[in-house]
């Protein structure tokens, strides 16, 4: 069964401060993601990959088309038309999102950032922090950084904290926008192993990876964004 069914979506940006200039984000994108599989998205820079993911997550409003999602809690939803409150709830409970841009929460320790989703779901502090510690360790974050503020971490360390936070609760759907962008080869490989293990446990994924060999290892199927001349295809 398909967890996600993206049906002919398009996105345009109307920039009023440039007297209504219209920028095309992407046009007529369709694909499905079967439950428990990983879809990779590829395409040249500016072809709209990140924008597609943001439309699914709800950070961008979809201009045309439908995005159908099977929510364990709410059933079949059209994400482009769901109440904001529902989107918020599925973000909290079902959908994880990791971007190429780091989003560190100021003045909260690494361990607290990563354990927060478990605590919000009702876990005890001690158990949540211990699970968070295990995951950070797996990602190669040295123990001495656990209680430090990630705002002071290197790009790669911050990125791994973000990854840990997004996957600690094994989300139903995980959206990844170049999550390994600033990691070295070894760490990238560790991250990929963790993602693949997560998929085996049932998490459905959709991801953008810059390096072709990483994309190939990650993906069960690949959607190529169309450029102006050809149409998007699934392989």
């Amino acid at each position, binding site marked *: 069964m398909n967890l996600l069914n993206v049906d002919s979506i398009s996105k345009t940006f109307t920039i009023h401060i440039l007297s209504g200039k219209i920028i095309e984000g992407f046009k007529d994108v369709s694909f499905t993601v079967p439950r428990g599989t990983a879809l990779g998205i590829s395409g040249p820079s500016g072809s709209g990959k990140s924008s597609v993911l943001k439309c699914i997550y709800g950070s961008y*409003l979809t201009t045309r088309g439908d995005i159908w999602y099977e929510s364990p809690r709410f059933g079949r939803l059209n994400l482009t038309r769901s109440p904001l409150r529902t989107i918020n709830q599925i973000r909290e409970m079902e959908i994880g999102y990791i971007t190429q841009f780091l989003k560190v929460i100021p003045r909260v320790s690494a361990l607290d950032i990563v354990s927060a989703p478990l605590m919000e779901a009702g876990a005890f502090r001690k158990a949540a922090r211990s699970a968070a510690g295990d995951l950070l360790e797996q990602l190669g974050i040295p123990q001495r950084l656990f209680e430090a503020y990630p705002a002071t971490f290197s790009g790669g360390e911050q990125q791994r904290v973000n990854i840990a936070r997004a996957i600690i609760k094994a989300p139903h759907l995980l959206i990844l926008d170049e999550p390994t962008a600033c990691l070295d080869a070894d760490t990238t490989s560790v991250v990929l192993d963790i993602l693949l293990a997560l998929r085996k446990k049932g998490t459905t994924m959709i991801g953008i990876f810059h390096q072709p060999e990483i994309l190939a290892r990650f993906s069960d199927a690949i959607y190529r964004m169309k450029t102006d001349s050809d149409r998007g295809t699934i392989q």
Partner: protein
Amino acid sequence: MTPVLSVRNLFRIFGTACSRCFDGNDEICGNKCPWCGAIVACKNISFDLYPEEVLGIVGESGSGKSTLLKILYFEEEPTSGEMFIHLTKRNACFPGEAFMGSVDAANVLSLNSYQKRLFRNHYMGMVYQNPFLGLRMHISAGGNIAEKLFMAGFRNIAKIRERAIYLLEKTEVPGNRLDESPASFSGGMQQRVQIAKALSNVPMLLFLDEPTTGLDLSVQARVLDLIKSLQKEMRLATIVVSHDLGIIRHLTTRTMVMKDGEIVEAGLTDQVLEDPQHPFTQLLVCSTL
């Protein structure tokens, strides 16, 4: 899920209104009615606030944000409109818990002023940008909190004092400053006392009007952290007004944008900031980048 707070078609017009003030006419530019000269400070405002949710309001100076909060806090009478509050049961030993059962589902704006005051004292907290509005500067910090607790039905003096000390410590004001008046405190400490006071009655609704504007950056950060952790811990439904998009991003999940008294855009906070639709929001987001 039922909203804690629902606002419908709220207007606040200063001056003598004419019928066209209510039209929502696009020709109107600014918040002054071109036909009668009245100021339409809040224009047809409708929204819902859900339990435990933090809702942000942004907008330029004079767009009606403070006026709206004052109406919600019963400090200002709206010209027209409705407001519904859905109460959930709190700890039964809370003073005044019995009193409000009947108000549910009624338009609380039509309560008499005595009922409104009771309502505010028992269920609402407000933090103002200007501590002079939220605190009485000539009575002690503890006295400020005690007064609010007293109005919320607490009568046992020892208990009131104990709770005041607890709240001040919770907001990181040293307990030994309890008997000093806030006039002698720093801006950051005054905001903390305001927060302690606003939270003393365990409100169901917390309103924050530019709670950290005017504080220097490091103090601002600590006050924000405090607000965030208390909001989470007490699971407060909160509305925060700020012109600082960083604060809005940090604290809120949903945001409304106000211009000339109207809500011109509303959405998930990340959507409003990353994919703003209204020209005014685009300008706002661009100006801070």
